[in-house]
């Protein structure tokens, strides 16, 4: 049986079409597996995780065609991945086929999904709403040097079904400074781009983007979409001392009279004051939000942090609880040696100085940092929260993608599944 060329060591190249040599007449008799009819193959692969289907599509032409059948793909449960954004200062290599690099926690493997079905020369993955992937697309590099910045387009695609849609173009300032948020189907699959003062919103089928003033007390920090609402942190303090508060706004109410609502309960006490530079991450399910930051060792403004704390807010009961605390030996890697001794403020405040990137969703959070090159820490929410030894959840190191370089990872959760664009 003709073999596909072996993938580069470490990263599995999924879903590349098999080499053209396979489609030519081959003198050796076909392997019996290639004689299996489609419905038998589908029955076998429906017993397996989606990763195995994606991998097997590269084995031979028969598998590639049979396992691309839309009715078969729609039966498979989704494959949750952590997809990577390009590192800052990424230089597009136009000779390499565009692809999405992603980590599969269930098999602890790095995978590469082909994006060659999108006819743009350079693509930059930015976010996803469950199985729909959003990328910024650059027009082809201009050979003449000009200082005009060409408009960019957001592209919405599904790498499994190889379908895509191009959204109306935006000025390049939005792609440089805006945060892209993708809403799930229950919120009309809207796409938002948020900056300090304004938001753009696009709904499927609309002719153009709509613009709204944000009307928040300050620049929104760490906006996330949960259900059909946006949640963000805002600093309502002063230049000497931050005072973070949690705000939410229904996507439909953006720019409307009701606008943003501050979430607050008397019982919350000083929950926002114990964290340094908090970040928000979507929690598991549809009604939980995680707040993650450095745990202050005292209320002094420049107090060093002792570790990273993960708090969870149940949006139904509006109660906070602690669900995770980074193990000390892990935190030392992020903070740098000597961080525990309260030495130079620079090392002690690793989390506070934004040297640690926090991203994730759906029950997993990843941490990357300048001092932790080539790998990430991963926290996974556990079903039964055992409040033992103050750790909570499960923590482990994840080796970075082979050959990816010593960069600081930034990513987002993405479920591979067969939803149509």
């Amino acid at each position: 049986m003709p073999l596909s060329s072996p993938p580069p060591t470490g990263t599995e190249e999924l879903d590349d079409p098999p080499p053209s040599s396979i489609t030519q007449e081959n003198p050796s008799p076909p392997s019996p597996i290639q004689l299996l009819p489609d419905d038998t193959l589908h029955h076998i692969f429906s017993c397996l995780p989606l990763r195995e289907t994606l991998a097997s599509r590269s084995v031979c032409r028969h598998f590639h065609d049979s396992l691309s059948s839309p009715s078969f793909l729609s039966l498979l449960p989704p494959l949750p991945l952590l997809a990577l954004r390009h590192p800052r200062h990424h230089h597009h290599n136009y000779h390499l086929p565009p692809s999405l690099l992603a980590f599969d926690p269930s098999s602890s493997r790095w995978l590469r999904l082909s994006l060659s079905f999108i006819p743009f020369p350079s693509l930059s993955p930015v976010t996803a709403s469950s199985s729909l992937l959003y990328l910024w697309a650059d027009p082809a590099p201009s050979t003449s040097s000009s200082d005009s910045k060409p408009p960019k387009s957001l592209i919405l695609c599904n790498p499994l079904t190889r379908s895509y849609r191009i959204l109306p173009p935006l000025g390049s300032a939005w792609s440089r400074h805006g945060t892209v948020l993708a809403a799930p189907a229950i919120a009309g699959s809207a796409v938002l781009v948020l900056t300090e003062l304004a938001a753009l919103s696009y709904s499927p089928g609309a002719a153009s983007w709509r613009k709204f003033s944000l009307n928040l007390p300050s620049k929104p920090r760490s906006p996330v979409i949960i259900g059909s609402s946006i949640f963000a942190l805002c600093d309502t303090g002063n230049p000497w001392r931050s005072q973070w508060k949690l705000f939410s706004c229904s996507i439909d109410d953006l720019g409307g009279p009701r606008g943003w609502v501050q979430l607050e309960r008397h019982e919350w006490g000083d929950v926002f004051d114990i964290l340094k530079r908090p970040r928000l991450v979507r929690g598991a399910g549809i009604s939980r939000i995680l707040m993650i930051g450095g745990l202050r060792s005292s209320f002094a403004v420049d107090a060093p942090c002792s570790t990273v704390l993960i708090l969870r807010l149940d949006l139904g009961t509006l109660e906070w609880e602690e669900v995770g605390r980074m193990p000390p030996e892990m935190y030392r890697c992020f903070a740098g040696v000597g961080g525990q001794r309260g030495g130079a403020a620079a090392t002690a405040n690793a989390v506070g100085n934004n040297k640690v990137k926090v991203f994730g969703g759906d029950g997993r959070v990843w941490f990357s940092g300048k001092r932790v090159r080539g790998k990430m820490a991963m926290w996974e929410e556990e079903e039964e929260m055992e409040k033992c030894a103050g750790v909570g959840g499960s923590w482990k190191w994840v080796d970075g993608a082979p050959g990816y370089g010593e960069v600081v990872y930034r990513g987002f959760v993405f479920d591979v599944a067969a939803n149509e664009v």
Partner: protein
Amino acid sequence: MASYERRKVTLKSSDGEEFLVEEAVAMESRMIRYMIWDGLAGDVIELPGVKGKFLSMIIDFCKKRVAWAAGGDGTLEGLKSDFVKVDLGTLIHLSAASFCLKTNDLVDLTSQTLANRIQGKTIDEICRALNPEE
């Protein structure tokens, strides 16, 4: 208990082999069962999609299964695991034959066994796992 004549039927494979089996055994195949119920089956049922070698193995399993269900020795799990203790090429043909005959137990069993050979493997390993041993 006095034995009595049970109805028998002849199954004929694609390569002309004939197997005389009890109707109860033949009806483990849903395809044959519906043919008999619908009155479409004569004394000889032709099965152009299945070769004699594999039909024989499936008939053997069905006989043992019927005997076990009537209070015989052994376990169903044991019968199933014995059935799939074959080389890859045979397993694949048995899978295709089970599909053709709609013997649902065997469809699930052979599919799961083949799936186990694929699970957790890289593309390269899958290629090797699905190639019959020389």
